[in-house]
């Protein structure tokens, strides 16, 4: 089959700028073939090459005694003692989910699970951070239903418990929803599989599902802004098959036990191209692929299509040839494809053969390492304006504004569609703070949380970046876990605009400072740029996924107070209302600065909380919605009332950081206050749990009525 001639239009259609094409010509010294152009466009798009973000990502703290492997592999690897490791990452599937919500979200979950089990880990927990446009926007309800169904359909069938996540609504996501999927797995620290190929003449083996035309060009699509031609892009979204993924998981883990795997990579964005180039490059080897041997789902596929297909549930492996028969038998057992499609070669070459033709012949190491890298111009985000006058509102009315909005309503509508208990190790289900699962067969537990407050990041990228990490830290501490490490999923608008790049740079600075101060290095992550529609960017949304460790169930802190328990706040309350949930939900205002984050106080208060867990019945972090929302959520979950002494709006709804709300048996209160005095941590009694109403100062309402509002608002908005 003849390939199209290379024209400037064709180059532009591949997302390559004229100077990038010149660079390509400089590298290969001739005009590329059509297949080669496709390969370069796949390797050089923003999604795969991080060309706008790399310079700044390098500044993030990624090491520590707990880190076994930081960014650069499929997922980060962190030591959890006893020779075990937790392996995790978060990744976006934003653009596909907007185009086709069910499959876009499903394959996002599939991709992140593969990243984890490619490394030899069995996935044990998943989370999802979702951002949608306003509920009143005509697309939103459809997107919410499709995305939630898609996440559930994949994770539930695969058999990983979804134990946490976030769902938010804001007009800036009207034309560009965010789907950030997190997965964590468990492996023995000395049995982790990496992507470094080694040995010449080793068979390159294709595993899993067959290759079809789905997703051809997907990575390039994910790196483009949306406009009104979006409906034409539907064919670039892949279709997920969790049943095949589950078999692939079991087959891969079985295979890894045999010693047959030299290196392995999942085929994610730009499928065969990225996985083969990465394994070759890391092993300083060339790769030769014979595409006729690739298992194909459709007839007459071209080399171009096979190299760029993003068909799901596929892996590429460099095999120890002595164990070929053993390896093949495992894949036959699980009814999966197993095909030798090429070999490692000594020269620095990426050689693609199809039929009797050479379809691509490129210098492999250059292909892997020569992606353009930009130092994009950026401007610092201007200082936030004043918060301004806050209209008068009663405290209960203010609470109603929050819990009646889908942003702060009960999220059971979402998470009850996810299996949160499969594997029978879930100790804390979604709904209140971090999710917790047992490390199967050991006394240890792992806690997971995902956090960011995009309003803060927009107003003040540096403080907002810090806050996302600090909130994750607090959520882990609040369940009794020692925070270990983080993954970042950085969702921003068009980096070619200096103000957007400024948001990115600011957020990275804040995140970097916070993970250093709180000793939770970034071990993996993903950047999603160009989240804009018709030139309007999303709120900057750097989602932080974090993992914490508990030595045993004795360390767990519950989220449920008992009737009669005292309510105390750990940390200092000033009543910061800038960019608060109250302003946004009650008045539609997004004014003022983000709250300041005192990282020393965060660490001190987190450690204080964990050190005094025996005195606590329950704990939760204070974040957006402040004391009032946290007290209500805690009380509602425990089916008891709550009384807070203060009726002041700023005390109740202020979003000062480094604070926790704890419930304490009356008898333990003096000890906790004394411990606070000794440690120099402010501990203040603020009220009491019990009764059947919610009382803030002198205002009150029946718990039952508020609970009804809280539990119906989400479905009412989008259901």
């Amino acid at each position, binding site marked *: 089959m003849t390939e199209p001639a290379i024209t400037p239009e064709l180059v532009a259609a591949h997302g390559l700028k004229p100077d990038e094409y010149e660079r390509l010509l400089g590298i290969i010294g001739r005009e590329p073939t059509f297949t080669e152009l496709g390969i370069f466009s796949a390797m050089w798009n923003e999604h795969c090459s991080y060309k706008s973000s790399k310079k700044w990502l390098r500044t993030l703290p990624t090491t520590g005694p707990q880190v076994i492997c930081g960014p650069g592999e499929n997922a980060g690897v962190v030591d959890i003692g006893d020779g075990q490791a937790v392996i995790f990452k978060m990744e976006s599937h934003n653009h596909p989910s907007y185009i086709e919500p069910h499959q876009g979200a499903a394959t996002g979950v599939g991709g992140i699970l593969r990243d984890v089990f490619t490394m030899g880990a069995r996935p044990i927990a998943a989370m999802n951070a979702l951002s949608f446009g306003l509920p009143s926007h005509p697309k939103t309800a459809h997107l919410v239903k499709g995305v939630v169904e898609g996440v559930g359909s994949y994770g539930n069938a695969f058999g990983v418990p979804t134990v946490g996540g976030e769902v938010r609504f804001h007009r800036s996501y009207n034309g560009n929803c965010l789907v950030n999927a997190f997965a964590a797995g468990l492996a023995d620290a000395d049995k982790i599989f990496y992507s470094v190929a080694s040995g010449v003449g080793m068979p390159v083996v294709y595993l899993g599902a067959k290759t079809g035309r789905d997703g051809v060009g997907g990575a390039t699509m994910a790196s483009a802004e949306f406009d009104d031609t979006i409906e034409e892009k539907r064919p670039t979204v892949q279709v997920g098959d969790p*049943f095949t993924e*589950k*078999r692939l998981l079991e087959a891969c883990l079985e295979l890894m036990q045999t010693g047959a795997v030299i290196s392995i990579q999942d085929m994610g964005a730009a499928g065969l191209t990225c996985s083969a180039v990465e394994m070759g490059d890391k092993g300083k080897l060339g790769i030769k692929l014979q595409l006729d041997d690739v298992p194909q789902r459709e007839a007459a596929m071209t080399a171009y299509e096979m190299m760029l297909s993003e068909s799901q549930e596929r892996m590429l492996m460099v095999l120890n040839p002595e164990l070929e028969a053993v390896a093949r038998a495992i894949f036959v057992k699980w009814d999966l494809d197993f095909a030798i499609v090429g070999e490692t070669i000594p020269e620095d070459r990426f050689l693609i053969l199809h039929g009797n033709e050479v379809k691509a012949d490129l210098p492999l190491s250059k292909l892997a390492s020569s992606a353009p890298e930009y130092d994009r111009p950026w401007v610092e985000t201007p200082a936030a304006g004043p918060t301004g006058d806050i209209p008068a509102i009663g405290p209960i009315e203010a609470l109603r504004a929050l819990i009646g909005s889908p942003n702060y309503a009960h999220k*059971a509508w979402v998470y*009850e*569609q996810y*299996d949160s208990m*499969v*594997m*029978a190790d879930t100790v804390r289900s979604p709904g209140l703070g971090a999710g917790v699962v047992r490390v199967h067969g050991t006394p240890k537990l792992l806690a997971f949380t995902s956090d960011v407050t995009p309003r803060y990041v927009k107003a003040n990228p540096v403080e907002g970046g810090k806050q996302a990490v600090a909130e994750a830290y607090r959520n882990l501490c609040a369940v009794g876990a020692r925070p270990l490490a983080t993954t970042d999923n950085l969702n921003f608008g068009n980096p070619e605009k200096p103000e957007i790049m400024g948001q990115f740079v600011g957020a990275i600075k804040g995140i970097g400072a916070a993970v250093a101060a709180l000793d939770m290095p970034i071990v993996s992550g993903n950047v999603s740029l160009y989240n804009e529609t018709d030139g309007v960017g999303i709120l900057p949304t750097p989602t932080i996924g974090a993992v914490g460790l508990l030595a045993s169930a004795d360390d767990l802190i519950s989220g449920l107070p008992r009737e009669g328990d005292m309510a105390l706040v750990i940390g200092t309350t000033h009543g910061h209302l800038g960019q608060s949930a109250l302003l946004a939900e009650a008045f539609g205002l997004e004014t003022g600065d983000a709250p300041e984050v005192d990282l020393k106080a965060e660490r001190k208060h987190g450690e204080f909380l964990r050190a005094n867990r025996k005195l606590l019945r329950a704990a939760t972090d204070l974040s957006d919605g402040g004391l009032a929302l946290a007290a209500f959520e805690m009380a509602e979950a425990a089916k008891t009332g709550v009384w807070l002494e203060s009726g002041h709006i700023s005390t109740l709804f202020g979003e000062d950081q480094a604070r926790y709300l704890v419930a304490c048996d009356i008898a333990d209160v003096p000890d906790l206050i004394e411990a606070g005095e000794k440690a120099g941590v402010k501990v203040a009694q603020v009220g009491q749990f019990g009764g059947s109403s919610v009382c803030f100062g002198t205002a009150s309402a029946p718990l039952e009525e508020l609970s009804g509002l809280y539990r119906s608002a989400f479905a009412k908005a989008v259901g």
Partner: protein
Amino acid sequence: MKAAVLTFPGSNCDRDLAVAFEHSGAEVHRVWHKDTSLPEGVDIVAVPGGFSFGDYLRCGAIAAQSPIGAAVRAHAQRGGYVLGICNGFQVLTEMGLLPGALMRNAGLKFICKTVELQVATTDSAFTNGYDKGARVMIPVAHHDGNYTADAETLARLKGEDRVAFTYSDNPNGSVDAIAGILSDNRRVLGMMPHPERASEVSHGGTDGSVLFRSLTGALALA
């Protein structure tokens, strides 16, 4: 007690079920769907939850045709015990070992939450450790748990005291809020809720463990 826990491609509660049996003192054997025989002396065959064969056809329909099926049927015909949970319940109805069928949930959504069940009969090896009418908390997690059967079958199930569990607050539209049923010899139980997910203190409840302990106790005496 010797238990055989089956694994089909797509099963994902097989380990969880094996663990629950082990905790109740059973000797557990894992059996692959392509096997054609059960281990010697097996007392109970357990068919786990999950999405066998992706549930791409009717749930459980393909698993019911697996090579191991003949051995499971023969075991049941000999009066052996069989327990099917969630997808396992669907498989058992597709195999014809239990009457009726499981349709898509009335709300058309997957539902995962802990629900209250009532123990409708204690006259079985599975349920004799409960008090009759006891209310127990056990999680559900399914998309197709809406039990249905024709009027005659329902009348028989009730007349013969073969409804094992009912939902207190029907989550999926099941006829008469049926959550689990017994075979006519009372040795085959199919149920949508997951007792293995409520069998340890850290699960937040242990009501499910009673079922496994009832079985171990009853089968030790048998």
